[in-house]
Every structure is written in C-alpha cells, then in structure tokens.
C-alpha cells in the first residue's frame, strides 16, 4: 500500500522482485545500486546465507527526488528464491505495491518459473489482492545464455496473463532499468 505523507511531503512505494532461486533478483538490485547516482539511493542491505544466497531479503531504498513538492521514494526488495523459504517470501511480499517477476530464461528452469509464478499468484490472492489487476511486470533474465528459451516460448508458458515483459541479461545490466521503469510507472498509476 502506497503511503502518501502530506505532512512530510513524501510518497512511498514498495516494489518486490520475486522469482525462482538464482534467477537474478539480487543481481537486478546490485546493478541498480551500482548505476544510480549516490544522492538518490541508500545502502543496499542484503541478508544472505554463508554461500551468498538470499536468506531473508535484499533491500534498496531509492529516492526519485522532489516532484510537485513531494519527495518520491521507492523501497526495492528481493525475496529468497529457494523453495525452502516459501513462508519468508510471504512475509516480504507483505504490503507490496508492485512485483517484478524475474524468470530464468534457461530451458531447464521453466518448471521452476511456473511453480514460482503459481506461488506468487496464490500469495497475492491470500493477501486479498486481485492477481489480474495487480501491478506486475516480468523479466526474462539470462537471455544472453545459449540455453535460453526464445521469447515467444516464454510468453506462451510464463506470461499467460500478458503483463509487460522485458528481455534481460541482468548481470550486464540489459533490461534492468527498462523493467524498473515499467513497474515504477504501474505503481505510480495506482496512486
């Protein structure tokens, strides 16, 4: 739920990067953190396992500056993708205003993408959200890898709800800001 603080002249929104393990959610936030000006971002907070897999979440606050006297702030989160952490994903999803579903475009990860997407739909529905109306964009990550599925195939299997989707190679930054721009606009449109 977006918070509009007229007294402090601030508008806050929460965006969550969701998807199966190792699909590149954290990589998205790391790239964003490395590229946006230092005066528009806070520290990237990561709570990881010893093997640098996300344990709880990554958190990056970004500041769009003042618009009509209001400071616009987005809080970007990732969820832990490993199957074990399903209930942690529910916790992080709490109060989100929009979701980026980061799919791993690799051929052998298609079942994992579908399972994660099903779980996302269930979790949003359980939180009283209408999945089909919810601000959601998809990112087909790792499209640079030879084993990646072609976009029309990913569209057919993953993007059955026909939300905006972007091809990406997050490690190189391709598609990262395109995705962020799209979800930010969807969230703002809900104000």
């Amino acid at each position, binding site marked *: *739920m977006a918070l509009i603080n007229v007294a*402090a002249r601030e508008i806050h929104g929460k965006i969550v990067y969701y998807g199966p393990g190792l699909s590149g959610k954290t990589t998205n936030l790391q790239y964003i953190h490395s590229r946006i000006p230092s005066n528009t971002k806070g520290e990237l907070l990561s709570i990881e396992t010893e093997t640098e897999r996300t344990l709880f979440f990554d958190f990056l606050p970004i500041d769009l500056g003042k618009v*009509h006297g209001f400071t616009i702030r987005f809080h970007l989160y990732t969820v832990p993708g490993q199957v074990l952490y399903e209930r942690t994903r529910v916790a992080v999803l709490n109060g989100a205003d929009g979701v980026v579903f980061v799919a791993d475009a690799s051929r052998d990860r298609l079942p994992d993408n579908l399972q994660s997407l099903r779980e996302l739909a269930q979790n949003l529905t359980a939180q009283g959200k209408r999945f089909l109306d919810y601000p959601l964009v998809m990112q087909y990550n790792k499209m640079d890898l030879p084993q990646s599925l072609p976009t029309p195939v990913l569209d057919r299997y993953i993007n059955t709800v026909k939300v905006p989707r972007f091809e990406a190679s997050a490690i190189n930054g391709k598609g990262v800001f395109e995705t962020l721009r799209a979800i930010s606009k969807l969230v703002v449109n809900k104000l």
Partner: protein
Amino acid sequence: MSQFDPEISRMVVVEEDQAQISACLQRLMADSGASYSMVIDRAGQILASESDEVRPEMVHLGALIANTYASTQEMARILKEDGFKTLFQEGMKEKIFTETVRGRWLLVVIFDKQSQVGMVKVLARRSSAVLANILDLVERRSTEVNGPRFRQVGKATIDTIDLLFKDDGCSDDE
C-alpha cells in the same frame, strides 16, 4: 485485530494526523524515558518518528522490523496461533520493543537501561490503543481523499522515472 483492507491502495497522512501521532510518540518517550520511537506500516515505511538525537539508517531499521514482524506472523500461523503482537530485541546498550497497532502498523520503541522493560511494554500498549484510533481515522479518510492532486503528482513522477531510470541508469561518473 482488524483485517487488512486490500481495496485501500494508499494511506494519506495529513498535517493534523502527523501532529497527533507525533504527540502520542512524544508522550510515550517522555513517560518511558525512551530515546526513539516510530510508527511504521507493514511495508516498513515510516509514518512518523520522534528522536532525542539524529539516528542514521532508520529507513533500513524500519524495513528490517517490518519484515521480521511479518515473519513472526508466519511462525504464529505454523503454531496455529492468532499472531504474535510484540517483538523484543535486547542488546548490551539498547533494546527495541515493537508492538502491533491493529495488526496493520507497528509502534517501535528504542530505549536503554535507564528505562524498565515492563514500563515500556505497558506504556507502548497504551500508546498503541491511542494510535489505533488515530490511524483508523486516517485509513478511513484515505479512501475518500480526492485523487486529482495526487494524479498530478503521479503524472510528473512518471516523467521523473523516465529521466532517472534511463536504460543504463546514470552513475555519478558519467
């Protein structure tokens, strides 16, 4: 505990609300001897805060507490409990006590050894009841607030998003 209303997609806090919330936090701090207090929403966003001193990284603290609280609700679900209403962290120098406000917001109090834990808990519970009444009104009114002003802000924000989030971002050294 009231249920989250998913149809409310925004919460609008105006000056009068802020003043009432701040007054409640100030009273809590004065009575308990706490050094910091804040009200955050379920997303970890700070609605209001009061502090004896400048404290950095409170945005990160808000995010951590909100997610920790959300995790404890999942723990409660597994144990078939209705929910856990408080969190408590105890450090060598400071302690953090968190009390839910209607299950929709969190009241966070930071205090040191000068304050008694029991006293903070009692006063936080009392403050939570006061805040619940204020925030219920804020929430109800948020559904009625006219949109054009925010739509105008929203339109300008979209232009800013295009400018700031260019395809390759825009680092300092560019």
